């Protein structure tokens, strides 16, 4: 077993996913099949091999720190499920 049901539930919680019992069962089986396949990477000795996180540039891309036009607030709010013309509205956080 690469991953247990409890671990699947824990990872789902980290990812803010609420899985049903049936989903946990199914995902545990599938993730085990997938992670077992992944373990073929262990065949390779990668001691001292650099990681690749980016295939081209290795330097950061900076722009001048100057004021320029941005999206209008209303344009940005329009895509939200709930907004009051000034901000995004969410369920009460502090009781």
């Amino acid at each position: 077993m690469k991953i247990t049901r409890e671990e699947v539930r824990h990872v789902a919680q980290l990812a803010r996913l609420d899985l049903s019992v049936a989903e946990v069962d199914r995902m545990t089986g599938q993730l085990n099949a997938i992670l077992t396949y992944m373990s073929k990477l262990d065949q390779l000795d990668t001691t001292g091999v650099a990681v690749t996180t980016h295939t081209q540039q290795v330097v950061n891309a900076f722009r001048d720190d100057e004021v320029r036009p941005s999206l209008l607030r209303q344009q940005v709010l329009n895509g939200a499920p709930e907004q009051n013309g000034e901000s995004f509205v969410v369920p009460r956080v502090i009781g």
Partner: protein
Amino acid sequence: MEYFSSTVHEALRMLEAGEVSSVALTESVLNRIDAVEPTVRAYLTLDREGALRQAEQADIARKKGQAGPLCGIPVAVKDALCTTTMPTTCGSRMLEHFVAPYEATVMTKLAQAGSVLLGKLAMDEFAMGSTGENCAFKVPTNPWKPGYVAGGSSGGAAAAVAADQCMASLGSDTGGSVRQPASLCGTVGMKPTYGRVSRNGLVPLASSLDQIGPLTKDVRDCALIMNTICGYDPQDSTSIDKPVPDFRTSLQDGLKGIKIGIPREYFGQGLDPEVDQAVRQGMAMLEEAGAELVEVSLPHTDYCVAVYYLISPAEASSNLARFDGVRYGFRDRSTDSLIEMYNQTRSHGFGEEVKRRILIGTYALSAGYYDAFYKKASQVRTLIKEDLSRAFALCDVLASPVTPTPAWKIGDRSDDLVALYLSDILTLSANLAGIPGMSTPCGFSLDGLPIGMQLQAAHFNEAVLLRAAHNLEQRAGVVGKKPALV
């Protein structure tokens, strides 16, 4: 010949000669959509009025002598590219009614070139899939054999071009999502070098792998669209400031002096004999055109699937964290608690494959597993990149199949996930190494399903790919062959 069946360059010639108007072209394509869309199921949004309005404006611009390079050409794009005039759903319930506040850079470029936007095309949810079946709204079919997959994730983009429902389209390619459906549907499809085309306004799957690319009816059209979409964009911090050549100029050149590498690991177990034969015949055509064939080795090919299916879900799990019911799209309203709102929104807004990849990615990045999975995969990614660098010291272009088999029946491969992921093996290394790759039709199976040849080159060498692809196309005898829809 009906207008809808013409290529972009043929249509441009007719427009320039005054033989046709953009309105007539666009109406012809809209009629075609009416006739075949019930079968093909490629469009998630069709903007008939908007398209005709843009076509009228294109005709006026042309009369005034202000025609851009794609003036009056009706196109459509994968529904992962942000548009302000219609929704961008990414094939997900999560974004079902979402209209973006800004437009993707490539959409601005297409508009500035004068093209006419018909609508948005079906895709696997958040570009996760190789069949089109993971789209929450409709599953496109392969125009060559209805009931067979169009491929994915840019399945609608390939099917619409193959079925003449648009003259060209744009897709996005994270692990083969332009090249694989192009191959299965018999169109040309290009994944440019990472950084060649701005990703600004492309809803991200895996940011270090994603690249936008064209799907077209022939190689010359691919060069034309590449001319429009490539180039540096300060809005994308990974965009690269390199001069963009006119990709049309070297198409007519032969292949004398060009070395074509044949990676022996790409012709391994599981390769369908008909695909093997069609691709080898295609290679013989490249040789006839003057190229020299050399065998090369990419020893880490067998690890591509494991590396990709760790890195891509890891990046995706991070990218998709933004979909929490606050700023975009769907919110589940069954609860008063903020945390429960996040949980319920994500659980009901995302489909099965998206949840699965979020779980894999979160697991691979989580404490205790990071070194064993994500870091290990990122190291093997370096080895895969080095394989390709060594190969490109010996040859200019790599030739291979795109997919191990032609298209298969919808539903046939939904049970064995590892087997389905393995079918992506031939396209993944281009994304992992950031090099350009393309699919060009080279033949058909006995069943009448298209087979594509993949060509890959070193960074920023799209021109040599297009040149080799054009030589192949001239000899393969597949140009102008159309599926027998309707």
